[in-house]
């Protein structure tokens, strides 16, 4: 169901100012935190006499002189201009400059004042111990986004400075959509304990749509409150949202639902109990749930393959990853440490056989498809390496790691091709939580989110050879659940994002 948009009134007010055409570059209208949900952003409204030859660029200076970050404004070929500016810092004053050539005049400098960071963020105690910018996959407008299990999502630069955050507390789900917008899993109100809303917003905090899901669905094993979309969302080719959800019955976190982007209604469900053997959930006792419900599967990551229409998913509580076709619901392959003989015959043909030296996954998170060539798939995941049901009992608890595999579907084999984390040992072992992202230059960003048993989160970027190029540690509170559920390297002005204050 789509709920009332809380930023509609502010959008109308700002659109009115744009249409007034009274503000010039000498005397622009500036509004810090224009939609009241993104405090380190600003909107600058002005009218140009001549059309700029290219997009106007703004520059914001970070505390260290070398951290000059260019910000592209959505103002190409338009005399009625409004610039969306984000990635400011707080509480210091910042200067924004527009280059001379664009508007044939001296650079314009604006001073914007943002507010203080809330306590919930200043307590994060961000410590960067390694930051080799020349080797990091960090381009223009790119930050490291930290999505915590609770409270504000925020993004840091290479110095560990917070450059963006949302006042809308989020949990687990934070996705960049194909239109460049963000999709966050939020609370329906500031006092609500459950995270039952999905919000489509932009970087300035303007809300496009907000979906509310039922508050009657089951609690997961790790949750004290109901979180409807418990772990992940992917955008389908028709722009609908495929979400991980519980069905409201005896079992939890084992159903996928397609939510219509326009109406907010669920239009399709896939109950994974119907895809996997009943023996897996009928007598499941490996984990216990606070709510008494059976969390036998615990789907925590989704990937939709646009080329084949296949869904890849990670199921923590079975130490299993698998792929099936979204339309036919036919299984393509399954990988888990569960012995082939213990699978009913019907499923054995789907099982991948690991080659020598290939690790089996244990309580894994964050499954992504890296590439696909014919019958060969390359995937990446974060292997927590905890033996929940079918993991490796011998190595369980000794380390966590990011692992890349190549799957050969013609031979139904899986081969480990890269990993990082084993050498860090028990210090970086995380029982739950974690993520791995392959970056544009081949580096990998790894979120050891639940380090030291929920006391801190450690985010490390490593190159293909396993050399650390970025290392940041964030203090986490077990009580407030502020550990980093996922960390992403994110472009805050992607090319597909267009901002128009009048619409």
């Amino acid at each position: 169901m789509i709920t009332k948009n809380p930023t509609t009134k502010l959008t109308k007010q700002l659109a009115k100012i744009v249409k007034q055409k009274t503000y010039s570059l000498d005397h622009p209208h500036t509004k810090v935190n224009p939609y009241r949900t993104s405090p380190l952003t600003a909107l600058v409204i002005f009218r140009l006499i001549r059309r700029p030859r290219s997009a106007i660029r703004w520059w914001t200076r970070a505390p260290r002189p070398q951290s000059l970050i260019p910000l592209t404004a959505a103002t190409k070929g338009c005399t009625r201009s409004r610039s969306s500016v984000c990635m400011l810092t707080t509480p210091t004053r910042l200067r924004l400059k527009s280059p001379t050539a664009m508007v044939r005049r001296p650079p314009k400098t604006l001073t914007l004042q943002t507010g203080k960071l809330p306590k919930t963020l200043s307590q994060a105690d961000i410590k960067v111990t390694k930051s080799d910018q020349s080797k990091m996959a960090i381009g223009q407008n790119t930050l490291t986004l930290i999505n915590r299990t609770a409270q504000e999502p925020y993004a840091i630069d290479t110095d560990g400075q917070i450059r963006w955050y949302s006042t809308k507390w989020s949990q687990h789900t934070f996705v960049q959509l194909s239109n460049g917008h963000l999709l966050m899993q939020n609370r329906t109100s500031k006092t609500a304990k459950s995270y039952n809303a999905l919000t489509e917003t932009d970087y300035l905090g303007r809300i496009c749509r907000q979906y509310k899901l039922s508050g009657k669905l089951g609690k997961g094993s790790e949750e004290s409150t109901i979180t409807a979309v418990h772990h992940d969302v992917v955008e389908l080719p028709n722009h609908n949202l495929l979400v991980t959800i519980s069905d409201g019955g005896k079992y939890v976190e084992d159903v996928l639902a397609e939510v219509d982007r326009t109406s907010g209604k669920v239009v399709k469900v896939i109950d994974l109990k119907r895809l996997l053997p009943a023996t897996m959930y009928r007598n499941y006792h490996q984990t216990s749930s606070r709510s008494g419900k059976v969390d036998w599967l615990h789907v925590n990551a989704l990937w939709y393959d646009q080329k084949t229409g296949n869904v890849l998913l990670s199921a923590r509580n079975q130490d299993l990853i698998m792929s099936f076709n979204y339309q036919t619901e036919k299984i393509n392959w399954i990988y888990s440490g569960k012995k082939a003989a213990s699978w009913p015959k019907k499923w054995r043909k789907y099982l991948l056989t690991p080659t020598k030296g290939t690790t089996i996954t244990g309580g894994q998170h964050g499954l992504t498809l890296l590439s696909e060539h014919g019958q060969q798939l390359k995937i990446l995941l974060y292997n927590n390496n905890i033996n929940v049901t079918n993991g490796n009992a011998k190595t369980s608890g000794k380390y966590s790691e990011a692992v890349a595999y190549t799957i050969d579907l013609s031979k139904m084999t899986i081969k480990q091709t890269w990993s990082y984390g084993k050498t860090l040992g028990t210090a970086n072992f995380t029982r739950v939580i974690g993520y791995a992202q392959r970056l544009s230059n081949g580096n990998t960003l790894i979120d050891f989110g639940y380090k030291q048993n929920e006391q801190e989160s450690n985010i490390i970027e490593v190159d293909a050879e396993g050399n650390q190029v970025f290392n940041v540690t964030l203090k986490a509170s077990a009580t407030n659940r502020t550990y980093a559920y996922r960390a992403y390297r994110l472009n805050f002005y992607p090319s597909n994002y267009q901002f128009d204050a009048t619409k």
Partner: protein
Amino acid sequence: MKIKRRWLVSLVAIILLLGSGGLWWWQRGSLHLLSNQQIIKNINPT
């Protein structure tokens, strides 16, 4: 005689049909599986 046999065959077919349907229903209930319609109803807020 022929009519009697036909009736008997029909009766057995109906019993088998109801029996297998009932068995499917019982098994489904014992596994606590919900229908897709029920799941959609549960997810969409009322």
